[in-house]
């Protein structure tokens, strides 16, 4: 996987990071809390090979759009590198980047919002020609615009060139956006959910157009989507993104037939099928995508992973989630009674591998511990309990010590790349050791 970025792939991305700084609220700053950063893309590496379609699939907020925008230089990368045909393009000033934009184009999700409402379709497509001084004169420009319009199926061009975006349907607008992207003759087209705002019946038409354009113009696509069904049909390779990282990347057929990462498997199970014979009950990952400002320790997916185990990164915040989930299921009185036994949960919000669940006012540490013991007795199979190394009263509450978290490594498994301990013999061994020992599991951090 460590290819020389200067030769082979069209686009080589290495350890790319894009962080947005978030200005904390006024109150946060008063309390001396630091302004955090959203690690929207946090160490992404992949190659985009010439002529392929690489799908980037992930839930909302996983950083797909940010990845696309960073590749185009629309937001500055915080770290890492992007090589376009061997040339480093991160950190280039806009002036040097501009000629490269002819080679790298992007299509956004919302066709309506991507067209200037005050500009005719013809003018919108002619503009990039003007920016790059491509067309010789107005006549040439007009010819090129007409050719692009007809290539995307907006024929006869004369009928569309003078229309405004509001006069077109959603599908027609997306065609116009595609025409604007191809008029510069790009090599790589980043398509950020190009069909997700469109009707089912229009999606097929636009996808078909994109396939035809790829063949005709020898394009390479980075296809961003949260729809695994279109990705399966459209992509040669798929990268699954979760919280700013690519957790699995491999050939499309393999991703769908034999997903290696539990997250990929969950995504696949969540797709509804319009087939009455196949409506199997789906088992979904619990909860939500966590906050990217401070991602979970260890494996970022562990709070939702049905197969998580000892070394996956269990920590204080998981304890809070577990308690809250339990309380949502309880009857009101039962909840009130139990809520009294433990104190405020805010101390659990700082990620830590040792946490103390405080006892409620007027209650003892044994009582707080009792709550945890009851939880364990009720659902001993919850993966959370595998992560608990020690459970003790400590005078003021119940102290929970978790096993030392490991960050998943980038592993090569059957031609795919996966970041999951399940495929890492070292992590499995560490987990076995941790499970066997009562005391602290000392595991060397793999490099």
């Amino acid at each position, binding site marked *: 996987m460590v290819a020389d970025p200067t030769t082979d792939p069209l686009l080589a991305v290495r350890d790319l990071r894009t962080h947005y700084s978030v200005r904390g609220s006024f109150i946060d700053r008063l309390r001396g809390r630091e302004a955090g950063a959203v690690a929207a893309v946090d160490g992404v590496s992949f190659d985009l090979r010439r002529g392929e379609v690489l799908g980037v699939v992930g839930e909302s907020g996983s950083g797909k759009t940010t990845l696309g*925008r960073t590749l*185009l230089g*629309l937001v500055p990368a915080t770290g890492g590198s992007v090589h376009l045909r061997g040339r480093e393009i991160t950190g280039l000033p*806009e002036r040097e980047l*501009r*000629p490269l*934009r*002819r080679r790298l*184009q*992007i299509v*956004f*999700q*919302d066709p309506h*919002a*991507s*067209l*200037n*409402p*005050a*500009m005719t379709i013809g003018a919108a497509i002619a*503009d*990039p020609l003007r*920016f*790059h001084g491509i067309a010789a004169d107005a006549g040439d420009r007009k010819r090129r615009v007409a050719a692009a319009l007809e290539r995307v199926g907006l024929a006869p061009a004369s009928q569309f060139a003078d229309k*405004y975006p509001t006069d077109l349907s959603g599908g027609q607008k997306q065609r116009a*956006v595609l025409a*604007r992207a191809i008029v*510069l003759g790009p090599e790589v087209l980043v398509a950020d959910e190009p069909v997700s705002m469109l009707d089912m019946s229009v999606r097929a038409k636009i996808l078909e157009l994109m396939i035809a354009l790829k063949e005709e113009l020898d394009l390479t696509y980075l296809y961003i989507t949260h729809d695994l069904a279109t990705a399966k049909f459209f992509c040669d390779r798929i990268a699954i993104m979760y919280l700013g990282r690519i957790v699995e990347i491999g050939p499309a057929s393999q991703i769908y037939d034999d997903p290696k990462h539990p997250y990929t498997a969950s995504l696949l199970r969540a797709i509804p099928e319009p087939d009455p014979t196949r409506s199997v009950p789906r088992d979904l990952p619990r909860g939500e995508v966590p906050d990217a400002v401070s991602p979970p320790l260890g494996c970022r997916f562990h709070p939702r992973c049905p197969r998580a185990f000892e070394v996956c990164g269990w920590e204080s915040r998981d304890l809070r989630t577990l308690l809250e989930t339990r309380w949502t299921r309880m009857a009101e009185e039962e909840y009130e009674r139990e809520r009294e036994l433990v104190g405020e949960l805010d101390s659990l919000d700082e990620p830590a591998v040792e946490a103390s669940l405080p006892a409620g006012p007027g209650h003892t540490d044994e009582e707080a511990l009792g709550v945890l013991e009851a939880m364990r007795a009720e659902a001993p199979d919850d993966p959370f309990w595998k992560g608990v190394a020690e459970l003790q009263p400590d005078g003021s509450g119940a102290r929970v010590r978790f096993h030392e978290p490991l960050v998943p490594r980038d592993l090569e498994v059957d031609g795919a790349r996966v970041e999951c301990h399940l495929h890492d013999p070292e992590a499995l061994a560490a987990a076995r050791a941790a499970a066997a020992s009562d005391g602290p599991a000392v595991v060397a951090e793999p490099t």
Partner: protein
Amino acid sequence: MRVPRFLQPVFEVRGMARWLLLSGLAVVVFFVVLAIFAPLIAPYGFDQVSADGVRFPKQASPSGEHLLGTTVQSTDVLSRVIWGSRTAIEVVVLAVVFSLAIGVPLGLISGYVGGRVDRALVLVMDALFAFPYLLLAIVIAFLLSSSVGQGVFTAAVAITVVYIPQYFRVVRNHVISVREEPYVEAARALGAPRRTVIRRYVFHNVIQSVPAIATLNAADAILTLAALGFLGYGIQPTEAAEWGYDLQRAIDDAGAGIWWTGLFPGLAIVLLVTGFTLVGEGINDVLNPLIRQRAVEPPVIPAQPDSELPPPGAEPPPRGATEARATEVHRE
């Protein structure tokens, strides 16, 4: 000439908005005609107190000689009202042009560039905005009076300063929201230089909100000008006729039952302000699609032929008995 697209709806309006716009326009056009042709229309000059060597009577009531009477200084009220409209229109046009020319570009730059430039400009503008506007205008007029004199230009500049922050704020806030639109980002991705982005992608969409504010501000500017004149900080009586000044002079007359010196300049102010306001509201209605839609009447749905509907209140078909339901509900 092709009408700019954003003004097209103006020519397609119907209903209330059309009425507002047309009546407002009629009033404004009336005053503009007065202003332009004042030398032809006004019977006398604005400060003329005698004709053919005969001094006009003082405070004469309306008569054939002086249609709207004369003032305490013996000037002809009608002439002063007409010349006053010239002053008002001049000042308003200058003030609007100046404040647009300064406020809009500043707002564009501040909104698009952001960062420190933005913060500095916002600070200055907010300070100006927070200042009581009349006081601000008086201060400016006072500062300029020594160097430039107290003419039309000074009044226009004083009013300009008052309205710059308004354009600045509206344009800046609009730019900030437009800047985040995907089509602006798309233009950047296509390689558009920054100036082009601002000009062709941001400006065109922001400018839509300007006509309505400009006309509403024009209405406001008339009032500010009159207030300045009334307080004695406006245009000097020797420079031009000005309604606010006339009103001030008419105060003493009112007690003596001399109504014509105050009524007519006052009426002119009210009319012109109303005219501009109507135009502004009309433009607002026309350019704001939400308001535009509300003006459309709901259609009348013709009654259906009897065969197409079940008899009113018919026993609803039992669930599952589809045959019955189908034939009953639908066309035979």
